[in-house]
């Protein structure tokens, strides 16, 4: 396993008065795609939000490239090169597709070449460039959400359930996009419920249950070991396939 770009050790976090994470230990290897699996309510999304500084951390530490970023304000964490695509996608629906992208290109005008690469990945974005993003379909919104995250080179992408509620054809398009990002050696932490999608893309994997990481290792190992899958992911796994 290569060196970690992000490491969480013993992270506990609250949302309002609820204690959601109970000592999460997680290593995200640099230049790899790591999948975070687990049942609904296991704390996967909260883990991503905690990395972005969007929850109240009550214990432990989050280190990014060796720097302690625990409890830092969200904008500062983002400026370090971490992009976050939440489960809700967080599209600005009243802004046009173009304006959404302008906003995401934090350091100035968009790079022409990179934009063309994004248009090749997600052609609908070019087509609806000057339309309000609220008019896009669910799949197109997800494309826009990921496009925003990669309009500038980032160190780490945090993506929360990109396949949720999407048609299989679109899921396939998204998988293709992630394949390309993997080739570029972008570090990605992907929360997923869709095990097929995860198995296809993931290099390393971590499984969460009840606010803590209960397993971490290589995706290939988990994919080959049905008993382990059954233990970790329970009967729910079958339903995801």
């Amino acid at each position, binding site marked *: 396993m290569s060196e970690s770009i992000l490491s969480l050790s013993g992270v506990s976090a609250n949302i309002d008065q609820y204690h959601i994470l109970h000592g999460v230990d997680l290593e995200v290897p640099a230049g790899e795609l790591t999948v975070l699996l687990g049942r609904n309510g296991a704390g996967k999304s909260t883990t991503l939000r905690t990395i972005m500084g969007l929850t109240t951390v009550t214990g432990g530490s989050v280190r990014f490239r060796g720097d302690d970023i625990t409890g830092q304000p969200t904008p500062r964490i*983002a400026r370090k090169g971490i992009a976050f695509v939440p489960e809700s996608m*967080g599209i600005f629906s009243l*802004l046009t597709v173009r*304006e959404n992208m*302008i906003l995401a290109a*934090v350091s100035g005008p968009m790079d022409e070449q990179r934009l063309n690469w994004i248009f090749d990945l997600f052609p609908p974005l070019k087509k609806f460039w000057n339309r309000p993003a609220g*008019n896009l*379909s669910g799949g*197109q919104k997800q494309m826009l959400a990921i496009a925003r995250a990669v309009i500038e080179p980032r160190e780490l992408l945090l993506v929360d359930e990109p396949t949720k509620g999407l048609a299989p054809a679109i899921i396939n398009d998204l998988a293709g996009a992630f394949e390309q990002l993997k080739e570029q050696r972008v570090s990605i932490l992907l929360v997923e419920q869709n095990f097929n999608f995860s198995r296809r893309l993931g290099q390393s994997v971590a499984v969460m249950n009840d606010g803590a990481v209960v397993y971490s290792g290589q995706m290939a190992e988990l994919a080959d070991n049905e008993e382990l899958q059954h233990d970790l992911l329970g009967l729910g796994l079958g339903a995801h396939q």
Partner: protein
Amino acid sequence: MSAHDELIEPRPQGALGRFRAFREERPHLFLLVLMMLVAFFMMDPRTWVVLTISGLAMGAMVFLMASGMTLTFGLMNVLNLAHGAFISLGAFAGATVLVHWLNGQAGEASVWANLAAVLPALGFALVVAGLIGLLFERLVIKPVYGDHLKQILVTVGGSIILMELIQVVWGPNEIPVPRPETLTGAFLIPESLPVIGGVALEKYRLVAVILGLAVYGLMTWVIERTRTGVLIRAGVEDREMVEVHGYRIRLLFLGVFVAGSALAGLGGAMWAMYREIITAHMGDELMISVIVVIILGGLGSIKGCFYGAVLVGLINLYVGYLEPRLAAVATVGLMVGVLMWRPQGLIPVIKV
């Protein structure tokens, strides 16, 4: 992706269909046209022209005062009930320049001399209200983010303090603010013109309309065309995602708050010259119109605020002419009517 590739909107069929579509898609224009038409058939055309221009002038000034508050609420969900104090502050700052510092220029009968008094007066009102706005945000608003009840209590308190401070600095009495020489009086439309010939249009009202339109144009440009505008609109919709992209929304908000306070000050100074008399509590009286305008227009929407202000200005003048006793009721009545039709306001920004 076949079904998603085209975003086809069915075109409305027939005159009635198109009318319905216009009513639903452009409720602000629909209401404006409706109001002006109804008024047109209820009075003499000359009176109508005078009242319409006056209504637009009042609307333009109310827009200046309200625009800041709608953005503050839309962007940060902050209820600033001290906004009226900034209107008063601007009025007194402007009056100080006109009455004390540049009295000579204001009294001369030359356009240029008058401009040399009016522009510094407006500029000073803008700067004073903006600077006090900066202090106010840091000291009063910042500790109460996210709590409406505290915001109401603290800003009402802040408002009382600001208005008392105005009385400490400028004294407890009303201050007369004579209009600069060239802005008094009226233009006479030549008798030879049909229908509206012979109508007298007050110069100052025309100036107010022009200035209001200019500020509206400038604000629309900033909001629609610049990166800052993209950030403001994005922030009104989803603050958290703006932060996730690496922008410090607090800083953006501070900028908007200062600009909003400064515009309230500008509106106050304009109002001072319009009414030619000012009191420390004039802001409180105007706050009713301001609040009606921002609710009517849709919280957080500049365009909605502009049309809301124009509608409030017009209905005030029309009803004030037709039935003076109902003038005060008309403004609130308009708001109630619009909210029953469109609970989220004319041009909603925040999804309810």
